[in-house]
């Protein structure tokens, strides 16, 4: 991890109608850092994550990625998005394309890379997430855990500078959570810059460099996981942890 900031949010505000979902949020993520965002539902975690590649436009403040402010809608924004991998809660694999086509589509159509080269990379990524033998199947034929691993491979195929995970395990059956977290943990170990919105406290503890706690649209606390889980400073975080860690 270097000290160079890759993602910088400065005084970011976002409203859904009268609802102030992001309130003066400041956050800086350095290269190679793994930031886990936790907090109660409705606290703005997902919105924060989606704002970083502008799937959710913000009302004020600035977001900078790799030294450049997020461009407005258009080609330059598309280019920026291609450098930021995103994994969704509901997988969102392209339902009419095979697993292999899902992984190859971005590099071939967006980056205009040669299909033969991309195919090789896609197959090795699928190998890595353990789905290579299902390459010719369609998303609906795979389990949730498998689909989510393909979604990670699809994002990685673009060779992104950072990865955003928006509750990647929340829609999974419990026995499939582990296989997805394993892939994410190995990514984190390899030095991928990651912003992960999740309810998996175990993952936050062992894979995160930093835990960010959000409540009511505000970024309440930010600390290394050991410190955060042992000594939450704010009452809001104490309250949250007491509710989830007692079971």
């Amino acid at each position, binding site marked *: 991890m270097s000290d160079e900031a890759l993602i910088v949010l400065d005084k970011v505000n976002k409203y859904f109608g009268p609802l102030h979902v992001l309130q003066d949020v400041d956050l800086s993520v350095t290269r190679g850092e793994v930031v886990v965002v936790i907090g109660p539902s409705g606290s703005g975690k997902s919105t924060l994550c989606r704002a970083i590649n502008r799937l959710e436009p913000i009302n004020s403040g600035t977001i900078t990625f790799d030294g450049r402010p997020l461009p407005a809608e258009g080609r330059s924004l598309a280019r920026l998005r291609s450098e930021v991998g995103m994994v969704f809660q*509901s997988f969102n694999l392209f339902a009419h394309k095979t697993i292999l086509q899902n992984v190859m589509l971005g590099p071939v159509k967006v980056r205009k890379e040669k299909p033969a080269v991309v195919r090789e990379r896609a197959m090795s990524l699928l190998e890595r997430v353990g789905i290579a033998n299902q390459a010719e199947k*369609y998303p609906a034929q795979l389990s949730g855990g498998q689909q989510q691993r393909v979604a990670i491979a*699809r994002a990685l195929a673009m060779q992104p500078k950072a990865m955003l995970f928006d509750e990647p395990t929340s829609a999974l059956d419990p026995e499939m959570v582990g296989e997805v977290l394993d892939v994410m943990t190995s990514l984190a170990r390899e030095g991928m810059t990651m912003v992960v919105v999740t309810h998996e406290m175990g993952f936050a503890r062992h894979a995160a460099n930093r835990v960010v706690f959000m409540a009511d649209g505000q970024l309440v606390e930010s600390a290394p996981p050991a410190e955060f889980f042992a000594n939450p400073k704010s009452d809001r975080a104490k309250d949250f942890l007491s509710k989830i860690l007692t079971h």
Partner: protein
Amino acid sequence: MDVFSDPLNREVYLTGFLWILKLTLAGGVGALVLGVLLAAMRVSPVPVLRAFGTAWVNIFRNTPLTLIIFFCYFGLFSTLGVSFSDDIDLNNFWLGVTGLSVYTAAFVCEAIRSGINTVPAGQAEAARAIGMTFRQTLTMIILPQAGRAVIAPLGSIIIALCKNATIVGTIGLMESSNAMKELINANGDAVVPIFLVFAGTFAIVLIPTGYAFGWLANRLAVKR
């Protein structure tokens, strides 16, 4: 049934349905291309295009086809001098195709648009997240899935188009309804048999067409 034992009458019958077939094919291609373009306009982020698409649908979906075909002949051709061919039949044919296409495209557009609504928003988000432009997202992710969702309703539209093609007879093309009128005029004693043969021909061709579209819809359905 002596009417159809006369080769000249059979010729009239065949020519009539050949025109219907050609009108349906050409009109169908025109309507599909135009309809997809209109649907793309109606979901585009550009207000002018959206307004154009909406206006097109409102105008052509709510105007009788007979009037549109009349306008193609008397407006486009007679008044504005738009001519497709020196051959009068071919000219009438293409004027008819124009009218059928612009009219049917409005229905195709709305069918495709309802298909777009069946595609989960996450599909477009995932496409944008890997860096696809609006056009790439639409043509590679949204429209292919939307199209598969509306094959059955498109089938109904094509069937309607085939029957609507008889209206081109009003501007003089010897399509099936004109052919039937001619045969009836010459064979007043065989009105019912002539009518049954013409109506039956439509039904015999179109009933399997409907089933074929239903089969295709099932086969191509996107599994989620």
